[in-house]
């Protein structure tokens, strides 16, 4: 009995080589396919992201709408210079539109002062025509934003409407804790005799005002 031994290495090498070639071809085709598919994959993911973004935006818009305020142009009209911005402007930025209250208050005070003076002047016309007024007073109130003092008053006394003032004075009213106001006269002019009250530490302390505030208030005296 004999045993035949075949050397098959050549066949094996050939098959191995063939297999490697097939693998390389497969890898190359995979890469080519991937390159071809890449835009479509990107589009799919982009679409998904867009959908999520739209969903978030819709929810945000719904919440914002539920909480938002009407930008109605009709109701708040331009009743004053400080309200030049329309109430109808969009307000999506998340901040409110506010009114300049200080400006409003100033405008209101100015209007009150004007109306008070005009009323006084009207009365003056009527009464002077009837020629019954003697010794009358005109007060000018000057706004002063101090810690305690809020206005400086200048008063003028006239004998009759056509005469120059016979006396003038400038003073401040300082409110006290008991509710009663204390007046401090800075300047008195009585027929060309001018008297100025010295502003001392004692006087300021007695009034409950700082000396510097009194000095600042005095600088508003226009006589």
């Amino acid at each position, binding site marked *: 009995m004999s045993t035949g031994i075949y050397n098959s290495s050549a066949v094996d090498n050939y098959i191995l080589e063939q297999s490697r070639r097939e693998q390389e071809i497969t890898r190359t085709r995979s890469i080519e396919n991937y390159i071809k598919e890449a835009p479509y994959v990107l589009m799919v993911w982009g679409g998904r992201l867009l959908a999520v973004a739209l969903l978030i935006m819709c*929810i945000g818009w719904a919440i914002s709408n539920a909480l938002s305020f*009407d*930008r109605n142009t009709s109701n708040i009209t331009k009743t004053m210079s400080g309200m030049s*911005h329309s109430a109808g402007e969009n307000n999506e930025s998340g901040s409110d539109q506010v009114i300049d*209250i200080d400006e409003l208050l100033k405008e209101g005070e100015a209007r009150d002062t004007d109306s008070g003076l005009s009323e006084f002047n009207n009365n003056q016309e009527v009464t002077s025509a009837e020629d019954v007024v003697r010794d009358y007073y005109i007060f000018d109130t000057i706004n002063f*934003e101090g810690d305690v003092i809020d206005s400086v008053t200048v008063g003028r006394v006239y004998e009759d409407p056509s005469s120059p003032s016979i006396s003038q004075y400038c003073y401040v009213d300082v409110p006290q804790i008991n509710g009663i106001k204390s007046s401090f006269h800075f300047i008195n002019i009585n027929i060309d005799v001018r008297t100025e009250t010295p502003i001392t530490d004692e006087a300021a302390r007695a009034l409950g005002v700082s000396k510097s505030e009194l000095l600042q208030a005095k600088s508003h005296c226009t006589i």
Partner: protein
Amino acid sequence: MKINKLNYKTFLLITIMVFSSISLMANGPRIFNAKVDGVALIMGEGGLASGAIISSQGHILTNWHAVDENEDMEIIILGEGEIEDNTYQVKVLKLSQSQDLALLKMINPPRDLNVLQLSKVIPKIGSTVHAIGHPEGEVWSYSLGYISQHREDYEWSYKDSDETFTADVYQMQTPINEGNSGGPLLNKYGNIIGINSFGYEASQGLNYAVTVKEIVKFLVY
């Protein structure tokens, strides 16, 4: 895999909704904490009322009926120290009976007042509003509600009083009681959109605030 993706989206949605809800719920405490010391307590022989501090000089906006025949008025604000340290004398600067508005000014106000601002934006019907005041003497109380309707040239009167009032008001479903009168009605930014003024006792959720439009007219004219 599909279930996992669905869960992810559901989780994202729920997270967004939860955070939105939390932010909504947090608005009330935020506004109260930021604005409570901008609300003054008005005390006089006639009773208690509320007021809104609107300027650093101590201007306080309130109702006319809160100061009418209310002698010896004093203002109390929230601050450090005892009540006496935060009590201030006040003078009446301006009144409008028909609009039921009054402007007061504190004498010697502190420098660090928390000033409330007036919003020029008109609230939508259904929008959330906040009130701070002193209902029935329960000082500095917060309540939450909604704008129910805008009422122009609305007429009302108070019991035991001959006066009639006419103004633009917001009808609202915000609980207010006696003592809330003159207090601020605030929007989601904590700015004033009205002055809480009156309500109908026999009804539920029928309360009214005078609008900023009226306040502007009152302050300017």
